[in-house]
């Protein structure tokens, strides 16, 4: 066993990247790594979210807790969140979360004076420092205004509705956004969706396939709920058009069995290659989300790294000790 390294060098290939969407391949690693990454992205990448609400006036139909809960769920831009402090370990303030290192203050002051129903939206939230933190739709509008080429149409965006007001109703409050992680409350989760799938490995048994008539081929191809296979119009052979569309539903395999041709196709999941899809809430860019996640994963691993002065315990830990101290030795 000595000398054999099981170290692997995962590779990442980005397929598609937008601000709030990222699709990439992760290869040459195993499911534990992929899953760890997914879990961290969902639950441990920090963002900012409204955590404390002081209501001054609330004559709306919704009660205070209700509004506070809704405010909490508004995604806020949190590009700085990684460098900010959790308010519980902030030295600069006594924990009420009103310092620049750990919190951002918002105010909201709306009153309906017309006969029309007035929507109170995220755009009505005034940030004490919009450069650090503001609702994501407000930020999107601001960036779109700077970029004339963007496809963003402000008239389509109404903001995130908090509550609706009728004539005479008023909502006045002060809210403080703090840093947090999704594990504590889902409002701090920067990810709308993080998912990965094993890359499928599809082998069609061509010999067996040739025994099928065109009609049978067609019905077999159509048995898949997603468009994985198709028939080549020229050669009339069944070809795999999009292996990743396969959802491991086994429909084609069952169909083949029902047709009396088991083994017509062989589909396996590649154990070491994953296709990740990450969608962000807008709090941070999807690409940044992945990078932050890797960073946090590293920090977590660092936490279990043994200090260099534990060599005397090597008897106890053996090879593991050296490994945990880092392989720099």
């Amino acid at each position: 066993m000595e000398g054999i390294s099981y170290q692997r060098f995962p590779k990442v290939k980005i397929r598609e990247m937008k601000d709030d969407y990222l699709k990439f391949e992760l290869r040459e690693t195993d499911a534990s790594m992929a899953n760890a990454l997914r879990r961290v992205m969902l639950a441990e990448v920090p963002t900012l979210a409204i955590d404390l609400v002081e209501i001054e006036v609330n004559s709306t139909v919704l009660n205070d807790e209700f509004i506070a809960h809704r405010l909490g769920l508004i995604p806020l831009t949190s590009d700085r969140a990684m460098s900010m402090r959790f308010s519980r370990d902030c030295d600069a303030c006594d924990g009420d979360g009103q310092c620049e290192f750990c919190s951002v203050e918002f105010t909201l002051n709306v009153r309906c004076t017309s006969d029309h129903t007035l929507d109170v939206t995220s755009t009505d939230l005034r940030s004490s420092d919009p450069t650090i933190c503001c609702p994501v739709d407000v930020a999107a509008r601001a960036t779109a205004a700077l970029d004339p080429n963007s496809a963003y149409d402000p008239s389509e965006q109404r903001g995130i509705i908090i509550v609706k007001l009728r004539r005479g109703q008023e909502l006045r409050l002060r809210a403080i956004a703090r840093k947090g992680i999704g594990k504590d409350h889902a409002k701090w989760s920067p990810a709308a969706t993080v998912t990965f799938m094993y890359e499928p490995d599809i082998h069609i048994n061509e010999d067996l396939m040739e025994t099928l008539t065109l009609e049978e081929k067609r019905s077999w191809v159509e048995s898949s709920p997603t468009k994985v296979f198709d028939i080549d119009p020229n050669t009339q052979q069944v070809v795999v058009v999009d292996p990743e569309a396969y959802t491991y539903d086994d429909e084609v395999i069952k169909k083949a069995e029902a047709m009396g041709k088991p083994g017509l196709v062989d589909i396996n999941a590649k154990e070491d290659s994953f296709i990740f899809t990450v969608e962000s809430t807008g709090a941070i860019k999807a690409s940044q989300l992945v990078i932050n996640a890797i960073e946090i994963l590293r920090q977590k691993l660092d936490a279990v790294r043994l200090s260099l002065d534990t060599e005397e315990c090597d008897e106890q830990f053996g090879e593991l000790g050296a490994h945990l101290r880092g392989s720099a030795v």
Partner: protein
Amino acid sequence: MAVPDEDDTSKRIPSPVSMKSLAAPVKSAVDKYQLLPEFLKVRGLVKQHLDSFNYFINCEIKKIIHAKDNERIVSDINPKIYLKFLDIYVESPSVEEDHIREPLIPQRCRLSDTTYAAPVKVDIEYTRGNPIQTEIKKGHVIANMPIMLRSRRCVLYGMDDDELARLGECPLDPGGYFIVKGTEKVLMIQEQLSKNRIIIDTDKKGRVSASVTSSTHERKSKTVIVMEKERIYLQLNQFTKLIPIMVIMKAMGMESDQEVVQMVGRDPRYSGLLLPSIQECASERIYTQYQALEFLEKKVVKSRFTNQKVHQGDFYPKCIYVGVMLRRMLEAILNADTIDDKDYVGNKRLELSGQLISLLFEDLFKTMSSAAKKSIDEALTKASRSSSMDISLHLKKDWITHGLERAISTGNWDVKRFKMNRKGMTQVVSRLSFIAALGHMTRIQPQFEKSRKVSGPRALQPSQWGMLCPCDTPEGEACGLVKNLALMTHVTTDEEESPLITLCYSLGVEDMSLLSAEELHSVNSYLVMFNGLILGKHRLPQRFANGMRKLRRAGKIGEFVSVFVNEKQRCVYLASDGGRVCRPLVIADKGVSRIKEHHMKELRDGARVFDDFLREGLIEYLDVNEENNALIALYEGEADSKTTHIEIEPFTILGVCAGLIPYPHHNQSPRNTYQLCRMDTLLYLLVYPQRPLLTTKSIELVGYDKLGAGQNATVAVMSYSGYDIEDAIVMNKSSLDRGFGRCIVMKKVSAVKQAYDRIIMPKMSSGKGGLDSHMQILDTDGIASPGEIVRPLDILINKQSATVSRDQLISHKVLPDSAYKFTPVKHKGTEGETTVVDRVALFTDKDQNMVIKFMIRHTRRPEVGDKFSSRHGQKGVCGTIVQQEDFPFSERGICPDLIMNPHGFPSRMTIGKMIELLGGKAGVSCGRFHYGSAFGEPSGHADRVEVIRYHRVSSPSVYIHGTYLLPKAKTYGLRLGEMERDCLIAYGASMLIFERLMISSDPFKAQVCRKCGLLGYYHHSLKTGFCSMCKSGENVSTMKLPYACKLLFQELQAMNIVPRLQLTEH
């Protein structure tokens, strides 16, 4: 699902809810569904209550005061002094404050714990003064009567949604209940055996009897004719003993035995049965009317019975009535099939709030009158009458007011006059959810006590079809006794009889009094009975019935009059009395529906309303009896030439609550029943209510989609962790964070500030300028202010009570602080809950004390142990809450909100739930709502039955399994059930389990082969155990095991599964 083409606009139904058009099934026949919302628009969901109450207020109450005994109060001392009621009327609700009457609104009554009542005024004619002169006084208030919400007299009657909202009423609230002392009370619908009808039955001793319960405004009595030892007797409350029937007949003037025999019918079998009775009478030596009356005299007092009217001592109608009763009874003796079914819905009458209140009112009115009379007499006997006599002052309104209020608020109907003593007549409207409240209004309570261990009344009666919901009944002791009205059922109110009787005569009914006894039962004619009264006979019954029906369809007589030709009894029954259940049906002529497409189009265009259909004779109401004369097709396509009626919509056989279940026809039927009882889950006020993705038509009709009480969850059906056994569910923490299943609970706290109390400003304590930690939420007036967060033991009202006696208080001196004791109102709550003061209301109660009411709000998010339920009677507690990242996810990243254990399906057989899951997903995927109404889609997937077939083990095992009894409860038959067994296993009480499940239940000595492990048998000739597999008795041991276990092995063997026992020495 078939989606109608966009251009096929003729099929589409424009409606307020656009989705209705989506699921409109393509029917070849006319789509009559639209009639339903139209029907409910005119009728409302609680019309039966409103109609009944309106009838009471408009007609019944007038009848009561004009009844002979009630109309006048005459003094015994001076008969010239009298009081006569001329008219009575109920005004709209109002309250008298400081001698000013002002209108009352329901919301105010709820808040201030008062009764929503209206003054009842009478016009009276009375004598006063000396010398006596007659005076007329109008508008004298005799009572304050609780008023049913949304009835004619209610302020909310006829208001539109905006006006209702302004008065603080929910526009969707159906009304139909009372507000008494601030609580909402429904008068439950009472189920009773019909009045004034001959019912043939066998009594406890197995005797055949014919009974009639007569009920008029004047008196109520029960007459029973019973057969004992081959002789026929009559039983009546006025008589101490049973009276031979022939004596009665003679007493009523029918001296000739021959006439009696003729009246019963000429069939020699009847006269044979009558013979012993005739002989008995003869042996008593009673031959004449006079002798008979003398005989009766000895047996006690007056003889008046049955509801046949007596005119100037003419007993002939009564004789005929008795004759008919006798005939029916003898028929029943000869042929047991003709015994009436007491559970038949046609023999039932439903008593609604109007009738019940009317009974109570009548009783109280009489009490008031006699009290007034007494006080008048007292006043007259007093020698020195200083002031002139004013009778009207002796009418005390408190009698009726308090009587009504007490009865409704306690639910005890104790009416001695009518020998009525019933409890639990009213219930507090359950406001847990909108549908629970609605369901409450349609509930029917039985008359007899629930403990009766009989299956008859509990069974589902075929005659309930379309009238009473087959699913909606509680579990447990009241199962099958408490019922609910179906969606389209209507309960009739009384209708004027005399015009109908006249009409019958003009249609050719031969008057009974002109008929001889012989003619009565002649072969070619039918008797005509009207509300239990014999009118006469008709030679062409079918023609007569058709004539009546034609008149009804033309609207000449009331739409709820029923005409029923009973071929067996050779009778035509006409009924116009109240309390019958009936429902609308489409009339068909020789199987062709009278409703055509153009009618429906006019309806959709608003040119036609439901009443037009009725008026034009396209639709009519049939009651249960008349349904027997009709052949009703379920769908138009199934009608043939004999069909007389067509159902409007098949799902209307279900009630309001059952209509909420999607695909109920795919579920095992008790599951639907369980679901209806399941309306009790933690649904107080959901934070994010959603419309169900899979609606049913009933949901829309009821307005449930506007007042949701549920959420659509993404569900994974899989086993996950160990926290999901026994129907527990695993929930996603992130979903809960985002507001899934969150609800607000409101709690009411109220306190009265007595005259000797004072509420003071919170005192500033010295330290830090702050207040006492429990006083922080108090406002400057000493009462907690809205919006404040309340912790346990926080003071809500900073109240102090005087410790000094009453006299000192009255002296109006300002008492020193020392005279007060601190008596604050504290919040009682559990630690860790965040509760908030939602509202504070101050008002004065009837004793002029200030009452402070707090609404305390508490937002709850689901926790472990909370109960959740789907719409199919599948409840489950939350077993554990799991982080989202630990949850399964799909390749598209979808994470379920909760995980359900698949073991919940096989035994429950809720296929409907699976279809709902699929339908829901289809709905989400294509972004629209789908229908899951009962009987909505074409059925008959015969090719699929093969796949979902399941095995059912033969019944003996089930039987034997059920015999594990708890030690103490052996005599009561309590079962040590599965759950109890689980508890014992978990506790480790293995010997107890052994004792219960084996020794005390069904131990069995089995022969087991040690070699092959199979069960053998005891070979009697060899006197040893024998294994038929090994063909030897060498290795056979005897062991004990539960019989059920042995049976299981054998059943398994029958299915080609071999259970082998491996025995070791112990």
